[in-house]
């Protein structure tokens, strides 16, 4: 287990390093960051001054290592727009996004795992068909449009929920649903196939031959094994959700990191965008790292080998 953990950690660090390089390099996709920073109306002298000030005139690798060194120390540079520290800015906005992400993934899991289990217990039953129907529909529904339709329906027509802001938990209901439904079909399908597969294994037959009660067979012996791949998937989906929060937060005006990303992108605030990409990626890497460990812990075949 220790070796496994170290190996995973090494891999995760390497991925993080590569991602950091890419997110740094993105800045150089535009012809000249100094121009972007100075704005369109700036004079040549202003641009030159900015270039010197921020060190854009140095070789790109030197700039990267310089940036990386500071990034590791927690300094992601200064926002062009807010003129404050990017890390502080992100730190301020991240809790909202995290809260949204956690509630969305919880919603997705609570919705899709029981549905997947129910569908697997009785394949081709009504429940199975309903589950399949919902998952096919869910996969085709564009989240931004779904969000708008919910607003029209629930907020405007029925006046049940507030449309925008993040003051009360009610403000999080629609964003949670919009962010969460997109992950639900995949989790539902994986739970269903996993359960179907496990239910036809020899050890389930053994469990039944031992006279164990159906509940024990289903939830102890079957679900425990079927859930292992679902854990990985849920982690991956959680990571994707943070990326997807940009759409949801923009529509519902939730002032989280996703909204910040949209603001920064439209304002050409490159250091903030760069920092956000890095933070989101790192979060995904850390998340999948822990999911791998959790997986190994759940599956004795990996844990003890």
């Amino acid at each position, binding site marked *: 287990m220790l070796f496994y953990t170290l190996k995973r950690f090494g891999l995760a660090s390497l991925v993080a390093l590569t991602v950091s390089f890419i997110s740094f390099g993105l800045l150089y996709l535009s012809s000249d960051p100094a121009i972007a920073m100075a704005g369109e109306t700036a004079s040549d002298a202003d641009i030159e001054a900015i270039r010197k000030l921020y060190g854009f005139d140095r070789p790109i690798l030197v700039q990267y290592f310089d940036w990386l060194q500071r990034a590791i120390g927690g300094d992601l540079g200064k926002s062009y727009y807010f003129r404050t520290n990017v890390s502080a800015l992100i730190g301020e906005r991240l809790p909202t996004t995290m809260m949204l992400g956690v509630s969305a993934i919880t919603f997705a899991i609570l919705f899709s795992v029981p549905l997947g289990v129910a569908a697997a217990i009785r394949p081709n039953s009504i429940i199975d068909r309903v589950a399949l129907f919902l998952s096919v529909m869910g996969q085709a529904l564009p989240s931004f449009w779904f969000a708008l339709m919910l607003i029209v329906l629930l907020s405007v027509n029925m006046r049940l929920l507030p449309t925008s802001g993040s003051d009360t938990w009610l403000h999080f209901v629609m964003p949670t649903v919009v962010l969460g439904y997109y992950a639900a079909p995949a989790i539902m399908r994986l739970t269903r196939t996993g359960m179907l597969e496990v239910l036809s294994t*020899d*050890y389930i037959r053994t469990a039944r*031959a031992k*006279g*164990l009660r159906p509940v024990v067979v289903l939830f102890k012996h079957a679900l425990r094994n079927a859930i292992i791949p679902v854990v990985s998937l849920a982690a991956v989906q959680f990571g994707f959700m943070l990326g997807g929060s940009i759409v949801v937060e923009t529509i519902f005006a939730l002032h989280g990191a996703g909204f910040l990303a949209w603001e920064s992108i439209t304002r050409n605030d490159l250091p903030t965008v760069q920092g956000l990409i890095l933070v989101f990626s790192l979060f995904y890497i850390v998340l999948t790292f822990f999911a791998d460990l959790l997986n190994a812990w759940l599956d*004795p*075949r990996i844990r003890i080998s």
Partner: protein
Amino acid sequence: MPDRVLEVKNLSVDIPLAEGVLHAVDDLNIHVDKGETLCIVGESGCGKSLTSLAIMDLLPKKAIRKLHQLDLAGTSILDYSEKQMSDIRGNKMGMIFQEPMTSLNPAFTIGNQMVETLQRHRNISGENAKKTALIMLEKVGITAADQRLKQYPHQLSGGLRQRVMIAMTLLCEPELIIADEPTTALDVTIQAQILLLLKELQSEYEMGLILITHDLGVVARIATRVAVMYAGQIVEEGTVQQIFENPMHPYTRGLMRCIPVPGKTKPGEPLGSIPGMVPSLIGEFTGCRFADRCSHATDTCRSLNVNLRAEEENTQAYRCIIDPKTMAKVA
């Protein structure tokens, strides 16, 4: 018959398929007495495993079981609900499966899986259940049993896992054990050990044992009685001496020719084989199911359904109309 552990009458298993109904097991009668080993022999697909699952009421959902009598230790369990059946399974009757590698749940320790079986059927504390499990593991010849209890199935070899399966099945001291090809997946040397173990334990606990196998060598060593199955039917049934010394059904005879006999089979002499293939069991079948592969078959064989019957009180029953004397001549 106070010592009768199992009585099965008129068991049929039908499996509805797209092409028609597959009559996998047809009108089968078996019984097992206390301390007796019944070996069910036959090639793969003849319905041996379905028979054992049908007795346990563990058939796949789509299979249809028809049965006139099912008694376990003198009690009819034919009309038992699923709940009542589960009270019996692992308690009064247990089953050992073919694949020790996959028959134990990889996510739980050996101890966990043994203790849960005991606690399901006995009102026993976890501590005591663990002790019983430990004793049982030692009984099946597992060394360092207290260590094994904490281990996961993947940490044990196939032979060890099968011993664990046996120990687990014996925990509640069942009246009947059904072992479905328990040694097929194991190395040859381990096979002998496991069989020996089964036989010892059987006589110690005076259980009824149904051993399903396609290995006649195993049958000769362990069986009290033998039932030979072909294409879903028992074609011959009798004591081990009767079957081995004087096989009556052409199929049994064919099987016997397939095993080398030390001292009798000369080096270089080809072993027997049975030509042809098992007929499809989809739809209605008339006549002897072995007719197409039988060198003695007549038109009568192909049109007449023959019952399993014994010529005399103390001979085996078989399902064939050919006069054994003519059969001996041709063979």
